[in-house]
């Protein structure tokens, strides 16, 4: 299946002071694929996400999204182009209700088209606001015109997505008071509300018990299938990635160790080595922090 390339990283380096966090990382993500990025803690997985979503600017290298160079764009512009992500250490608006969290994202839906992207050149985001979800300042201040219609639409969209992740009955609850696993699912709903072309999940299973992980696997593959959404997942639960992903990229010490697409016959020994590295890392952290859970909740 020769699908279009949605995302491409080309020789990306990232330096923090003297530390080389990413070393010449390149990979491609094809349209409609479910790609997993694995690697031990500190391998640079989240840094890759931060660079793609524009939070960090790479020290060198280029990021292309649908043939457009997005390296220099700011985070909100990249979001407008159609990349949505979740966060490893949850970043919900804790005091707002679950529904409001999703509506806040839904009001920023943008339309992008390939054709426009090609004509508009590289640096201008070829995205325009989705008018179905907009109204003007005047309409907002007087509560007239499209305000009522659009607010109803946002609410419906929000409820639809909450339903999809199984949170419809918690819609009015403050996000910060939801159980941990639900907060993770709410983050996914919020990212989906942006109507993205590429969804990036950052350790969606962190802090979940095996049953919840299983449930989550179903949710992710379901979303990937139903929305036909190109999806990128970071995990260090190796089994999860190997179970659901068609394309696996492995990072270690900031460099790409292997890529199931380019390395035709991946050496099983390599995978075993990574698994060992992951296990080793867990042991080391467990020794330091005394518990497995402490590590899962903490940021890398």
């Amino acid at each position: 299946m020769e699908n279009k390339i949605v995302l491409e990283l080309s020789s990306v380096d990232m330096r923090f002071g003297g530390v080389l966090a990413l070393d010449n990382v390149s990979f491609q993500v094809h349209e409609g694929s479910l790609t997993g990025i694995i690697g031990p803690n500190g391998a640079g997985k989240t840094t890759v996400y931060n660079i793609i979503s524009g939070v960090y600017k790479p020290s060198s290298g280029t990021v292309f999204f649908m043939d457009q160079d997005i390296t220099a764009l700011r985070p909100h512009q990249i979001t407008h182009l159609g990349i949505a992500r979740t966060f490893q250490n949850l970043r919900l608006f804790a005091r707002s209700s679950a529904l409001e969290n999703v509506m806040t994202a839904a009001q920023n839906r943008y339309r992008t088209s390939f054709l426009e992207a090609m004509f508009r050149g590289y640096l201008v985001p070829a995205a325009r606001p989705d008018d179905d979800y907009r109204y003007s300042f005047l309409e907002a201040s007087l509560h007239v015109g499209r305000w009522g219609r659009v607010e109803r639409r946002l609410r419906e969209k929000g409820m639809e997505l909450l339903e999809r992740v199984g949170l419809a009955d918690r819609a009015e609850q403050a996000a910060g008071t939801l159980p941990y696993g639900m907060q993770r699912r709410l983050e996914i709903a919020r990212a989906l509300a942006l109507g993205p072309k590429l969804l990036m999940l950052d350790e969606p299973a962190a802090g979940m018990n095996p049953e919840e992980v299983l449930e989550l696997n179903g949710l992710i593959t379901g979303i990937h299938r139903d929305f036909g959404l190109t999806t990128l997942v970071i995990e260090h639960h190796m089994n999860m990635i190997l179970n659901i992903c068609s394309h696996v990229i492995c990072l270690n010490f900031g460099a790409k160790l292997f890529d199931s697409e380019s390395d035709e016959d991946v050496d099983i020994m390599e995978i075993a080595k990574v698994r060992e590295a992951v296990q080793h890392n867990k042991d080391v952290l467990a020794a330091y922090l005394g518990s497995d859970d402490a590590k899962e909740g903490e940021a890398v």
Partner: protein
Amino acid sequence: MKKSLFINAGIIALSLGLAFYPLGGYQEGIVILLCINCVAAMGVSILTGFTGIFTLGHAAYMALGAYTTAILTVRYGVHWLPALLAGGLIAILVAWLIGVPTLRLTGDYYAIASIGLGEAIRLILENWQSFTRGARGFPGIDPYTTRGLAVAMFAVLTILMFNLLDSRLGRELRASRDDDVAASLLGFNTPHSRMKALLISAFYCGIAGGLLGGYMSFIQPSMFDMMKSTELTAVVVFGGLGSMTGTLLGSAAITLIMEYFRDISQYRMLIYGLLLVVIMVFRPEGLLGNREIWDFLPHRSGTHSFGKGRRS
């Protein structure tokens, strides 16, 4: 949507009461002052309470509004209504100039710049004798701020404020307040979000300043010093950050307290400072926390409260 009608109707009812309930001359003055203070406090509230940007210089925007309106009406014979709006617009312009460099950053940058702004505006007003008559003040302003005008302005601006908070803008501001990074990754240009809040905020304070000039008939740079700025922010904190009804309640309470204890002015500031500290230590969430007053009413589940969900 039904709730929006309800709120608007409530504000109109309250305003009709304020405008037509028979009062003596002294109480009428207090009503005017109440309306003016509420307008200014709402301005600070949308910035500090709903967008999370701390300010210590909003009296400067009041000063800009007051002087612009006064100079236009007295010197150039402009009608008070366009003059009042011009005051609001000048405040917006200055806010934009000060916001561009400071709102790109998160942190205390705007707070410190706002002190600088407040002092700079006061200095200009004091030293530009030929235009502002300096520190002695600017007398002879036509007393256009009647009870009717003050209440009408209060009603219109309050309705606009509550409507804006219950809209995409409200969600945008709260998002950038609660988590700047998450907001920008949900597609918000957060420096722009902060700027929107600042401009609205400056407009409200500019209008409040213009109304104050028309009520006092006399304005003076020292009326808009850092104490006034502190008071504006304190009122918002007292009412509860992130609660607009709390702001209105807080403003009304502080205005009345200040009015009734005018005689012991020496101890007033001491008590006021202590109050600030004590509130922060014992009830930092203020009167209403971050909830609106109707969030306290028992309501059917499914009725969406704008802004906040229930808290644990």
